[in-house]
Structure formats: C-alpha cells, structure tokens
C-alpha cells in the first residue's frame, strides 16, 4: 500500500537520488585511476568525472586531506539539497542520518582539543555532513569536564540527548558512594574512541526505534535489516577489538565494557549475547555468531586479533571484510524501490567511494609499485551486482 503513496511526498527526493546514481565511478574508471602516476594526474582525472566542479579551484598538488574535504563537501551539498527537498518523515529521517556524522565531529573535536590542536585546524577538518552551528563552541571544553561541556554546549544540539545518556550511564556504573573526584578520574581516563563507540551505539539504537515507529512498512523492511546488520557489525567489531586488548586486563572488566558498547539490537542480541560477551579468542567468537546469517563465513577469513602486531597493509582486516559485505547490502538496498533505504545506501556507498579515492590517492602519493597488494584494497560500489 505504501508503495502507491510513496511518490506523493518523497518521489522527488528519491528521483534525485536515483539520478545521482549515475555519478558513481565505474570499475573502468577505478582502473584508470589506478594507472595515474601522480596526484595532479589523479586530480585531472577526477575533473572529468562528476567531481569536476568541486576540485577546479584547487592547485594540482592537492593534499589528500583537502581532497577528502572537497569530496565530502560535494556529498554534503548533494545531501543538503535532498534534505531541502524533503518533507515530513523524510526530513526527520535524513536528519537522523546526519547525527552519525555529528557524533564523529564532536568526538574528533574533543580528541583534537585534548591533544592541543588549534581550533581553526580542527574546524577546517570537520565533516561537512555533520556540521552544526554549536560545534565551534566545543572550544569551551576545559580538561576532561564532559559534563560541563554537555551543560554549556551540547545540550542544545541534536546529539545532546545521546551525550546526556552517555554521561548518565557512565556515572551510574561507578560504585555507590562515588565522589566528585571519582567522576573526574573516570572522565580523565576515558578515551575519545570509547565515547565515540558508545554514542554511536546509542544513536544506532535510537535510529532503529525511529525506523520501527515512524516509517512505512517497505522502508522499515529494508532499513531494519540494514541496521540489524550494522549493529551486528558493531558488536563483532567491539568483541574482536577487545580480544587481547591490553587496556582491559581483567575478564570482568572486558565483559562490562563490552556490555556497555555492544548495541542492544540486531540479530545477535539477545540470543547470542552471553556467548559473545564471553568470547576471548577468535574461535570462540566465531562459535558465538554461528547461529546468524553468514557471519561465520565472514569471520572465517578474518585474521587473528591476538597476532595484531603481525598485521600489515596486505592483511585483509576484519573491517575490510565487513565493508565488502556491507557494500553488497547497500547496493541491493539502493536498487530497491519505494523505500527510504536509498538515502541511507547512497550516503554509505558514496562514503565508500570517497574512501576508495582517498586510499588510491594515498597509494599514488606514496608511489607504491603497481603490483603492491594495496591497490586491490578498494571496494567498488555496485560491483557486486554485476556478478
């Protein structure tokens, strides 16, 4: 039923996205990019693709960071345009998508300020997709006083809710008779990466609920599936990365941390929760997720996290494997009709494309030999569909 009325409000936005499908680089174009000998050559190649306009003003020897910024800016502009064309639920939905980038930006800012990086540099490096006016006020942050950061700045922002929840949870986890000092210690020891993962987890759960409650059945069907996978992906990542992690020395601590960071949605939760929380080696993790889908196959090729030191560029890491599978799912979702999945997939696939370009740019600028295995380490959106 909702397919009949989908076009009424969201048809135009969807049509634009479908049109933008043509801007994805093709496999042949990737091949040509790989053949570029230098950054200026890569740039002039990109100027013949859809990225033409966003690069024209720069000089040929463009640093990778600026290149990334430009590509992201283009994506953000497109996204903003679509946002401006949307109404009702779609606007809310698109805004939720943005939140993910905002979290990244906030955490990056916090991390940067902690490392005493100049605010101007930090501001110029933020992801344009997750820009919001209050972001420059993060400067107010003093030391590790996250609660005052929340009170002064983030309370107004869209992601304030997540931040508040995060603060509450972290304080609650302390023992009963906590002192102010304890709280300060807690925050001092907290790594920005930890904040990021928890915030993202909350965002994901929140987004899941939003999709479940407000979207039409077709969109729900597509999106919940994607989000479940993403949640599982996060869970596996958290477990995988905590295996053999030196900062977490006791088993109890590992389990509590894991419990805090693993999303409470997805195919693995709650059925396999007990098992994966206990998993201390890759094999037990594999065993824990075997009940679901094709996760076991995915983990089959993953390198052992205990031998982390032996990893090099050639290793196909867990992330690579996951991205690959993710890309396939998003491409499928993109080709589905009449659902909000296209917007989500478009963002994800474009992100992947930007990652690819940046990766290639890095490879080119380092002048690596053409038979270096790193050249193969790109995942081309929509390449899975042809097979």
């Amino acid at each position, binding site marked *: 039923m909702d397919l009949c009325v989908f076009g009424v409000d969201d048809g135009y936005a969807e049509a634009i996205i479908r049109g933008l499908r043509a801007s994805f680089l093709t496999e042949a174009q990737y091949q040509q990019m790989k053949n570029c000998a230098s950054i200026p050559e890569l740039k002039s*190649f990109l100027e013949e693709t859809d990225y033409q306009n966003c690069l024209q003003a720069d000089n040929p020897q463009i640093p990778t960071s600026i290149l990334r910024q430009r590509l992201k800016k283009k994506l953000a502009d497109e996204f903003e345009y679509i946002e401006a064309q949307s109404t009702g639920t779609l606007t809310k939905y698109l805004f939720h998508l943005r939140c993910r980038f905002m979290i990244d930006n906030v955490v990056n800012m916090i991390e940067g300020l902690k490392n005493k990086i100049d605010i101007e540099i930090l501001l110029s490096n933020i992801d344009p997709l997750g820009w919001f006016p209050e972001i420059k*006020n993060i400067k107010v942050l003093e030391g590790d006083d996250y609660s005052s950061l929340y009170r002064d700045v983030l309370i107004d922002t869209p992601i304030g809710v997540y931040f508040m929840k995060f603060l509450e949870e972290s304080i609650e986890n302390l023992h009963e008779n906590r002192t102010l000092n304890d709280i300060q210690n807690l925050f001092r020891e907290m790594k920005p990466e930890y904040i990021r993962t928890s915030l993202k987890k909350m965002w994901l759960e929140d987004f899941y609920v939003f999709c479940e409650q407000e979207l039409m059945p077709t969109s729900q069907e597509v999106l919940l599936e994607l989000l479940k996978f993403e949640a599982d992906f996060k869970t596996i990542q958290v477990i995988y990365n905590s295996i053999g992690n030196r900062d977490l020395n006791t088993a109890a601590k590992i389990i509590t941390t894991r419990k805090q960071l693993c999303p409470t949605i997805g195919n693995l939760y709650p059925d396999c929760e007990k098992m994966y929380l206990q998993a201390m080696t890759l094999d037990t993790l594999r065993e824990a997720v075997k009940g679901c889908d094709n996760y076991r196959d995915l983990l089959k090729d993953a390198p052992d996290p205990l031998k982390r030191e032996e990893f090099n560029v050639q290793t196909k890491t867990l992330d690579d494997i996951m991205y690959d599978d993710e890309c396939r799912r998003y491409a499928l979702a993109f080709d589905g009709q009449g659902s909000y999945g296209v917007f989500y997939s478009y963002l994800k696939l474009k992100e992947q494309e930007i990652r690819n370009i940046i990766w290639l740019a890095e490879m080119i600028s380092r002048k690596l030999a053409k038979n270096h295995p790193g050249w193969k380490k790109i995942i081309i959106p929509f390449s899975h569909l042809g097979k």
Partner: protein
Amino acid sequence: MLRSQEMSLFQLIMPRESAWAVMDQLGYMGKVEIIDHDPSIPLIARPFANYIKRCDDLLNKLNLLIETAQKLTILKQFQISNKTNNKMCPKIHTHQYLDTLEDQINAKVNSFLELNRNHEQLLEQQGIIIDQLDILQECRIYLGDDFFVSRDSKFDYFIGTMKQEEIYQFQRMIFRVTKGNAFVHIKLQNQKAIYIVMYPDQGVILKKKLQKVQESMSLNRFTLPINLKEFDKIQNDLTVKLKEIKQLIELTNIQLNSFIQELLKQTEGIRLIDHYNMYISKEKQLYIQLNKLKMQGNLFLGELWIPKKDSVQLNEVLLIVKERNRDIPGCQISQKVPQTIPPTYFLLNEFTSVFQQIVNTYGIARYREINPALFTIITFPFLFGIMFGDIGHGFCLLIFGIYNIFYKLEPFYELRYLIVLMGFFSFYCGWIYNDFVSLSLNLFGSCYVVDGQLTPIKPQDCTYPFGLDPIWGDNLEFDDSFKMKLSVIIAYFHMCLGICLSGCNFLNKKDTYGFCCKFLPQILFLTSTIGYMDFLIIFKWVVQFSPQNAPSIINTMITMVLSFGSVEGPPMWNVNSQELIQSILIIIAVVSIPWMWFSHIIKGYQVYQRRSNVKIQNSTSSIEGSQVIELQLQSIQDETQQEKSLLQTHDHNDLSPDEEFTELVVHETIETIEFVLGVISNTASYLRLWALSLAHSQLADVFYSLILSSPMTEGSIIGALLRYPIWALVSFGVLMCMDTMECFLHSLRLHWVEFQNKFYKGDGVEFHVYSL
C-alpha cells in the same frame, strides 16, 4: 538537398612543427571533419591534453575576473560577445601567441585580484572601525556617562559584534556558563548585533570560559575604555582612521575601474577581453581537433572528410600554409578509399534547416540516400493545413510567422518559415473548406436558392468559384464525407511518393534487382488496392448518379476483395468491364505479395549455397596448394561482397552463413507483412487528417455558438462586447495554441511513420564540420 554531399576521404601526414599551422588553416576553411582515430582514448592520454587544460584555465580566469568585477558593480550587464562572424575572430597565425597571451592574462588577472583583495581588506577594516564607533556610542548611551566617570570594579564587561542569527545561541551560552549571573545587552545594527555583556568579576576560570565563548562566537571584540578621556581619544582616532580608509577605498576603486576600462578598450573593432576570449576559445577548439590525430613519432597522421566539390580548395589551403611558413616543412595529403560509410552532409540555409531538423530528429539520412526534408518543406505544412484549415486562424498564424521574419521573437524565430508555410496552407485550406472561424463566407454568391423548401434547388450550370458552396456550411454529413475521402486520396499520393523515392534510391544504387523486386510489387500493390479506391472516389464525384442507383464504394471494395472482383449492387459503370478490371487488380495485388516476399530470399539462398560450396571445397582441398584456394576465395568473396549489400544484412559480418540466411528470411518476412498490413493501416492512419480537421471546425463552432452567437442574434452590443474577449481568449488558448500543437504533432507523425518508413533508412552519421 535531395541527396547528401558526396564526401571524399583524405589522409593528412604532417610533421609536428607544421601541425598547428595546418590545423589552423583548416579550421578557418571550415569545410572538413577530422576523424578521431580512436574515440576510446580518454582526454588525459592525448598529446595536447595540457594545452586544452591551459585554455580552460585561462577561460576560467577571465570568467573569474568578470565575475568579481560584476560583484564590485564596476561592470554592469557585461557579456562576452559571441563570435558572430569570422571577421571578428583574431587573425593571428602563430601558436606562440598563446604563450604571450597566457602571460598577459595571468598578469592582468593576478594584479586585478590583488587589487581586489586590497579592496576587500580595506572594506573589512572600514567595517571594523565603523563597528567600533557604533559600539562606543552604544556603550555611552546604554551605560551612561556616569559609568565612565566612576567605574564599579565589581563587574567586568565584554563588548563586541556578532552575527544576528547567533544572538539566541550566544545568550543561552552566556546564561549557562555564568549560571545566569550575567547581563547581556544586544542591539541590532547594520546586519550585525552589538552586544554588551556585564558579569560579576568572580575569578579567572569564569573569565577564561567567557572569553572562549566570546572568541568562538563574535566577529569582532573590543575593549571598553576606562574613562571619558580615553573614550574621546579613541573615538577621535577612529574617525581619523575611518577617513583615511575611505580615501584609500576610493583610490582602489578608481584603480579597479581604470583596469576594467583597459580591458574594454577597443582595438580593431573588438574589445580586448573579447579578443582574449575568442582567441583562447579558438585555440582550445584547435587543440581538441589536434588531439584526434594519431601521433607516430614526430609525425601526425590524420584522416578527414571533405565534400568532394571542396577538395580542390583543400590543396589551395595547404599551399597557403606553405607560403606563409616557409621555414617549416609542409604536409602531405592523399586521397584514400573510404572503409567506413561517409558522413551525411547537407548544405542548408535558414529556410531549409528547420525542415532538415524535423527529419533529423527521426534519424540522420544514410549517406547519399534521398533526403525527405526536401519534400517535407511542402508536404509538412500542407498536411498541417488540411488539419488546421480555417481562414481566420490560418491568417493569424500566417501573420504571426511573417511578423517573426521581420522581428525576432525568440523561441519561434528558428521556426519562422515553417510557421509562415503552415499559416499559408491553413489559410488556403480554410478557403477550400470555406470555413471562417466556424462560419461560411458567402463572397461569390451561393449557387443554391433557398426557396422555403426543404432541399434547396441548384440551378444547372452554376458552380461556386472557389472552395465549398456556403450552403454546405453547417452540413456535418457533407463535410465528413468530403474530408474523409480527401484524406484517403492524400494518403495514396503521399505514400506513393514515398515508395517512388525508394525506387529512386534503388536506381541510385544501381540495384535493378531491388528496383524490380521491391519497388515494383510495392507500388503495384498500393495502386491496385488503395489507388483503385481513390479512383472510385473521384469517379463517383465526377459522374452523376441518381440516389437509388448510386453505388457504395465501401461495398464495392469489400465484395471486390471477398468475391474476387465481382460487383454487387449498382455498378460504377459497365458491370462486365468493372468486374474484369477488378479481378485483374486483385490478381496483381495477390501476385505482388510473394513477389516482394520471396525474391530476395531466393537470391540470398543462392549466395548461401555458393558459400557453403566454397566451404566444402575449402575443407577438402586444404591440403593442396593453398594459394589456388586463396585466389578462388578472393574472387568469390568479391562477388559476395557485392551481393551483401543486396542481402541487406547490414552489419552481421560476424554471423555464420547459416545464421545470416535465417536472419534474411525473418527480415524479409517481417518487412513484407509490415508493408502489406501497412498499406491498410497507414491509409487508415491518414484519416487523422479528417478527424483533426473536423475537431478543429467543431471546436470553433462550439465556442462561437456558446459564447458569441446569442448576443449577436439578440442584437445586444454590450453583451457582444463583453463576451468577445472571452471568446477571443478561449479561441486563442484552445485553437491557436493547443490545436496548433496537436496538428503539428500529427503532421509530424504522418511524415515520420507513414511517409518515411516507405523509403527512409535514417541510419547515417552526421557530418560535424570543424570550423574556427
């Protein structure tokens, strides 16, 4: 115009040094098309990619310059003039000129941008000073003079400006940071907001934090003077500074202006900036063409198409190059036998181009095939006229077209000749139908006498001189029968023309077999069916029948087909001779179907047999001397090459003979079925002429009778005056706009489908002339 220009292929070999000069001259000649030797090569991989890039960069820079100038409102409504004629184009025949130009432009643009940057900086400074003055004033007003006299040290102050849209955010932040212990005063001024924050001096931490908030949100920050004396001093300083800066701004403005004036200076009739722009655009075009050439070491190899009659000129042009540049080696040119089909090139003018456009939209003519555009010039507006026929509306359209010829009216300017012809033919057809906005004109006096009787009497030897007698004006039945028959007659002649053109195409290709086995049966089939019907229609018009003896054409045609030529009911003329003629026609029609169906299949089968024989021979005798077989093969291949065109297997060269033959059978069968059915259905399709013309006249009638006729018959002038604009608007909207579009589209369809499918292949390649 009837056939595309004959093209010849030339090969151009030139050393690197002279490549530029040669291409330059060829571009000015504007008669050739350079063939891209390998279109799959991306631009970056081509030899002159960096030159094109340079040109692009320069053009961008010029645009940037103009844009900034426009932003500064120095330039208003400036447009880079387009190249209107060749004379305006810079005649500089050295490619080093690009380098000098590049330097010039770079220098100019850079100094201009530098000036502009200065200008902007000055403006910014001016803004800051003005802000400061404003804020000082505001402080004085708001805090009062007393404040500066005796200052209370318990409070601290921040003053500054910020963006208006951030006011609430700012207030909130201040509130939160100080936990409500601060007072914020805000005043809006000049798209900015001035703020004065007053807060209790409570220690360093708070101050630091507030400072950070201030830093991150305000545009400018100032310090508050301590006492009145200082206040006055600062204010005076600032006013002096402001004056200085204003002078400086004035100065840079003048500089910028003179700079632009320099660019607009005319030398030899063109502005400097146009000169730059044209030369660089030209250069870019030239390098794009140069990129199409193949580079082998120091030599450029290129192939080009040129109309045969212009090929003499090509040599002359190359001679000019040699004369001009004696110090560089010349180039060589040699004619080649084309391997691919040459491009289609028509010499067009303002009048014919629109009609060619109508045809090209369907498909570009195959090389040397008959161009339907020539016939379209008349048939298209004529068919339109039949549908749109109305004296009044046609006249309006005609006037509109003529107006367009003299005064340019943009969207229709290109179509002006088409509109004139369309208007003329609808005007003409309007007279034939005697239809003036749904009324019949009685200009020459009707021949019928209405004498209070039911049927008017017509005196014997009276004919209405032109068009229909006005007595038929409201008689829908008569109109129907007349227009229907007319459209069938036109259908026959239009399709006949199409088939005849296919005959001409066969003759032009010297394909007598095709002429005999395609054209002849087709035209015979059409004539013996639809042609005969048209004959009957005209016969019945000419001969007078008494109502009870009048034969029905429909019945005649049906019984003719069903019972082999026999006549039922009253005959047209003598029963016997009519039956004889009809049965002969039936025989012709029936015979022509297998004739056009199998003739090519039989021929194709022979070729197929011969080829498979060759194959068998080939495989058996392959052990013997292969030279003999090769020779044999060669001769047979030559033969088959010729027959291939007959086979109409366009590009199935990679198919095996077996497949090729089946393909041929299927193709011929489909074509025959299509033709035979098409004769009936296409004729029926021409009935749209009748339907649309009917719709037009009926719509006009409805509007007239509903809106205008009642006040006119009642004689109320006011009513008529009031209703007239409504009628005019509706007529304009529905009849002049919508119906024109509709008739245009149907006329287009009749040409594309019914007319052109008889002969037009439309699979040619357009000739893209290279011209600077």
